[in-house]
C-alpha cells in the first residue's frame, strides 16, 4: 500500500514536471505558418513562416520545420505586421500634468503608471504593442517619459522597456502659456503667458542646468569641497545637454518648432521628436538638417487656433524631405486604429505602402531609440507581432492575435470564448450582499461606455480633469 502511494506520487511528480516544461516551451516557441508578412523593413513576404524562440524572431522563411514542442499558429490567408508603436500616448497614467510650475522636469510618469488601465487591452486589440507615455503639455519643460510595452496582466515593472533611452516632454505654444485657463481671484497667473515667455523659460532652465553641471564638474575635479545638491529638476536637463536624454517637443506652429531647434543648436543638443508638428511640412528641410523626427496626427486639425494651418500631405512632404515620420494617437481611443491612420498617407501624397507602415512601427521605434529590438519583422528582433485577418490598411481588417516578445497578450478567439465565463462570474458576484444595490432592485443591463476623456492635447485644457 505504502509503495503504491509512493509510486503514485512519483508519477504525479513526473507528470507535473512534464506539464511545466510543456508550458515553459510553449511560451517561448511559436511557429506562425503560411502568412503574408509585412516586414516594415524588407518588403512583403508571401506564404512565409516566422519561428519565435525565447521571445525573439529566430527564423523567417518558407516551410520552416517546427520544433517538437512549438505552438503552431496557422496564419493562412492572414497578414502579419510588426506590433504598432504609438509615439505619443497618455494611457496608463494616473496623473498627466503637474500644473504648478512651467518647468517640471523633476517629475516622471513612471511614478503614476497604472498597469490595469483597460485602454492597454484595447490597444492590444488594435495591434499596438508599445507606447511612448508622455507627461502632458501644460509645461514648457514637462516630466520624464516612459517607453513601455503593453504587457497586460503583468506587474508594472515588466512594462518598462529597460534599454530604451530616457526621454522628456517639452511643450510650446498655447498649452504651456496657459492663457486659456482663467486665473481665479486670489491666484497669480503662472509665468509664462506668451510664446516669447515659453522660449525664455526653456532657455533659463538650460542656463541653470549648465551652471548646475559646472558645479558638479568642479566638485568631481576636486575644485570644490562640498558636494553640490542633487537637483531633480536640473539633472534631466544635464542629461539632455550630454545627449543622453531624448526631447519630445509638443508644438503646432512651424515658427516655434524652428525656434526650439535653434535653441537646441545653441546649447549643443538635438531634439529627438517634434510632436504633433501640424505645420512641420513648412520647415521640412530645416527639420531634416537638424535631424529631428516628427510624430504627427495624419488628418486632424482646426480644433483650435494654433492647429489651423495643417494639411493631410504633411507626412508625405516630410517623408520626401528625408524626415523620419511617425503617426501617433495621443488618445486611448484613436490608438486602436493607427493602422488606418497609416493607410491615409498612401492616399494623401502617395507614400509607398511599406513607408506608410513604418510610420506606425519602425520609424516610431527609431524615434524612441528602440529600433534595435522592435519595430520590424526581422530575425533577432523581439517577437512583437500582430496577426491580422486582412491587410492592416483595409478598413475590414482587425487583429486576430497580438504578441509581445513571443507571448500572446491578445487572442480574439479566446477573448470571445471568455466572455461567457466573465458573464457568469459577474452574475455570481452580483448575488453577494456587498454588491447588491442599497435600495434593492436589480442592476441595469450593461452598456459599454468610454470611461476616459479623450487625451488628445486639447483635453489638457481642463485643469484637474483626467489628463
Amino acid at each position, binding site marked *: 500500500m505504502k509503495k503504491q502511494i509512493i509510486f503514485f506520487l512519483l508519477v504525479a511528480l513526473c507528470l507535473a514536471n512534464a506539464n511545466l516544461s510543456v508550458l515553459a516551451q510553449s511560451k517561448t516557441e511559436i511557429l506562425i505558418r503560411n502568412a503574408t508578412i509585412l516586414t516594415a523593413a524588407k518588403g512583403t513576404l508571401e506564404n512565409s513562416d516566422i519561428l519565435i524562440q525565447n521571445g525573439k524572431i529566430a527564423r523567417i522563411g518558407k516551410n520552416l520545420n517546427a520544433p517538437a514542442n512549438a505552438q503552431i499558429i496557422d496564419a493562412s490567408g492572414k497578414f502579419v505586421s510588426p506590433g504598432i508603436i504609438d509615439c505619443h500616448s497618455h494611457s496608463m497614467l*494616473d*496623473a*498627466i500634468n*503637474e*500644473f*504648478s*510650475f512651467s518647468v*517640471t522636469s*523633476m*517629475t*516622471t510618469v513612471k*511614478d*503614476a*503608471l*497604472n*498597469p*490595469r488601465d483597460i485602454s492597454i487591452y484595447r490597444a492590444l486589440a488594435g495591434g499596438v504593442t508599445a507606447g511612448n507615455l508622455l*507627461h502632458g503639455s501644460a509645461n514648457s519643460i514637462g*516630466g520624464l517619459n516612459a517607453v513601455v510595452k503593453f504587457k497586460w496582466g503583468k*506587474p*508594472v515593472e515588466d512594462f518598462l522597456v529597460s534599454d530604451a533611452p530616457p526621454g522628456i516632454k517639452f511643450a510650446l505654444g498655447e498649452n504651456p502659456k496657459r492663457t486659456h485657463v482663467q486665473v*481665479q*481671484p*486670489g*491666484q497669480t497667473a503662472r509665468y509664462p503667458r506668451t510664446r516669447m515667455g515659453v522660449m525664455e523659460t526653456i532657455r533659463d532652465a538650460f542656463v541653470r542646468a549648465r551652471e548646475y553641471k559646472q558645479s558638479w564638474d568642479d566638485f568631481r575635479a576636486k575644485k570644490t569641497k*562640498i*558636494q553640490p*545638491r*542633487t*537637483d*531633480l529638476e536640473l539633472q534631466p536637463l544635464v542629461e539632455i545637454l550630454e545627449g543622453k536624454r531624448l526631447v519630445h517637443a509638443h508644438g503646432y506652429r512651424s515658427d516655434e518648432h524652428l525656434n526650439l531647434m535653434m535653441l537646441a543648436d545653441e546649447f549643443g543638443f538635438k531634439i529627438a521628436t517634434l510632436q504633433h508638428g501640424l505645420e512641420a511640412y513648412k520647415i521640412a528641410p530645416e527639420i531634416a538638417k537638424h535631424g529631428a523626427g516628427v510624430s504627427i496626427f495624419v488628418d486632424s486639425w482646426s480644433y483650435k487656433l494654433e492647429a489651423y494651418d495643417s494639411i493631410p500631405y504633411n507626412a508625405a512632404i516630410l517623408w520626401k524631405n528625408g524626415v523620419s515620420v511617425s503617426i501617433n494617437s495621443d488618445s486611448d481611443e484613436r490608438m486602436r486604429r493607427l493602422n488606418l491612420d497609416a493607410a491615409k498617407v498612401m492616399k494623401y501624397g502617395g507614400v509607398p505602402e511599406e513607408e506608410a507602415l513604418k510610420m506606425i512601427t519602425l520609424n516610431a521605434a527609431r524615434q524612441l531609440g528602440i529600433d534595435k529590438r522592435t519595430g520590424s519583422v526581422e530575425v533577432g528582433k523581439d517577437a512583437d507581432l500582430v496577426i491580422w485577418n486582412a491587410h492592416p490598411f483595409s478598413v475590414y481588417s482587425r487583429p486576430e492575435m497580438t504578441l509581445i516578445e513571443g507571448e500572446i497578450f491578445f487572442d480574439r478567439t479566446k477573448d470571445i470564448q471568455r466572455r461567457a465565463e*466573465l458573464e457568469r*462570474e*459577474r452574475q455570481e*458576484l*452580483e448575488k*453577494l*450582499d*456587498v*454588491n*447588491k*444595490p*442599497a*435600495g*434593492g*432592485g*436589480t*442592476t*441595469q*443591463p*450593461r*452598456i459599454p*461606455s*468610454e*470611461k*476616459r*476623456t479623450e487625451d488628445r492635447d486639447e483635453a489638457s485644457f481642463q485643469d*484637474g*480633469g*483626467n489628463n
Partner: protein
Amino acid sequence: MKIRSFLIALSAFILFSVCAVNAQTRTDVYAITNARIVTVSGAAIERGTVVVRDGLIEAVGADARVPSDARVLDGTGLTVYPGFIDALTNLGLQTPQPRPQIGGQPAQQQQPQSNSNYPTGLQPEVLAFEQLKGGDAQFETIRNAGFTTALTVGRDGVFNGQSAVINLAGSSVSEMVVKTPYAVHFTFRTIPGSYPASLLGTFSAFRQMLLDARRLQEMQKTYAENPRGMKRPDADKSLEALFPVLSGAMPVVFNANTEREIVRALDLAKEFKLNGIIAGGQEAWKLAPRLKEQNVAVLLSLNFPKRTASVSPDADPETLETLRFRAETPKGAARLAQAGVRFAFQSGGLTNINDFFANAAKTTENGLPSDAAIRAMTLGTAQILGVDNRLGSIETGKIANLTVVRGDILGKEKTVTHIFVDGRLFEQKERPRTPATTDGTTPAIANIGGNYSITIEIPGQTLPGTLALIQQGAALSGTMSTEMTGTSPIRDGRISSDGFSFSSTISFGGTQLEITVTGKVTGNQISGTIDSPQGAIPFTGTKNP
C-alpha cells in the same frame, strides 16, 4: 463631658470607617475574578483572575490571589481581553482648518507661522502630540466600543505629520500619550493650487526632500567637526525631521489602498531604504509575497467596500473589477497571514466603530484564525507600533488596558461591560443604543441649514466644494457642488439628533455615481463621509457666514 466623649467616639468611628473602606477597596485596585482571560501572549485561561493596581497589571492567572484592598468584579460569564488597539485614527486631534477657498478671501484662517521652509502639507515635522487635546469625553464612543488605545495622526496634507500612540483616556495629553512620535505619515495627495499639484509632483517633492535631508545631515556633520571655512548649513526643521526616517529608525507609514499605490510605496521604500509601513492596504493581499520579502507591515483597514448606491437607470453598470474588489477585500487578512505578512487592524474611517469587530469577524469567516484576528488588534498591533513591551497582552507589569466582554468579541451577541484604561475603570452602560433625552420626548433635531464650504479628501487629491443645505424640520434638501462634478440636488435628506444623511447622483469623469452622504455639524464645523461605489471618502468644512 458626655458630649466630649461622644465626639471622641464619633471621630474614632468615622476614622475607623474611613480606614476600613480604604483597606477594603481602593479605587485603583481591581480584581476581575472567575473570568475567561485571553492573554494573547500565552494560552487563554478558562477561569482566572486579573489584578489591576495603580495602572498596571499586578497579577494574572487561574490562581492569582485577590488582594484584600481590591474592588472585586465578578467576571463569571465574562471574557477579559487586552485592551483593543485601533492601528490608525485621527482621534483626539483638532478638526483640520479648512483651506482658503479658491476664489474666496485667501487669508481668513491662516495657519500659524511655523518657520518651516516648506508649505503646509509638506511638513513632516508636524507632531500629532502638539495638536492633541486632553479629556476623556471625546473618546467615549470608541472606548465604549471596546478600544483602549489608538495610533493617531492628522489627516491633512501630503505629509500628515508624525503620529502618536495614545491611550483613550486621560485629562491631560501627557497622561494619554504612550509613545510619540511613532512614524511619519505620508499620503499620495496634492496641495491644490500649489506644488505638488499632481501625483507626479507628490513623488518628486518627496524624493527631493529626502535627497536634501540626506545632504543637510552630511553637511551638518561636517560643520560640527570643523566649522571654519565652511558656510553654516541651514537649520531646517522639516528636513531634520526626516533624518530618523532616512536612517530607518522611524517608520514611514504610506497611506495606500490599491495595488498600484502599494507598489509605488514599496518602490519608494526600496529606493531610499526606508522602514515602510502600508496603511489601508485593501489590495495588499495581491502583493503579499513582496510585502513579506521587504518585511513591510500593513495597518489593514476594516472599512470594507460595499455598494452604497441605489439603482439608477442612468448609471453605468459597475465594472467586474469593482464587483471583485468588494468580494475579495474581506479575504485579504487571511491571505496576508498565510504569506507571513505582519498586519494590524485599523478602523479606516468606519462611520460606525462597532463595525470594526463585525468586520474583524468577517476576516475569520474568510479563513483567518480567530487568534490571529485578536492578535491583529492587540499584541500584533503593539509589536508593529513598538509598544509590545508595555501593551497588547495580559501580562504582569504591563499597562492595565483591558476590555471585558460578555460573549465573544468576534461573535454576534456581545456586550462590552468594562474597559480599563491605564487601570481606570470605565463601566459600560448597558446598550446605549437609543440616545436618552432629558424630558422623554423625541430627540432634539439639530439646526444645520446653511451654506458650507467643504473639502473632500479624494485619494491623491483634495477637492473643494460647497453644500447648500435647506432644513425643514427633520427633512433636508439643497445641493452639493464641486468644480469636478458640477451641482447636483440632494435626495432623501434626513436630520436627526446625531447628524444628517442624504443621497445624490453626481457626474464624475463622464460616469454617473450614486453617493450616500452622512455627517454631522458641530458649531460651524461640518464633517462626514461620502460613500460611493469606490469606497468611503471623508470631507470636512465650515459654515459660510
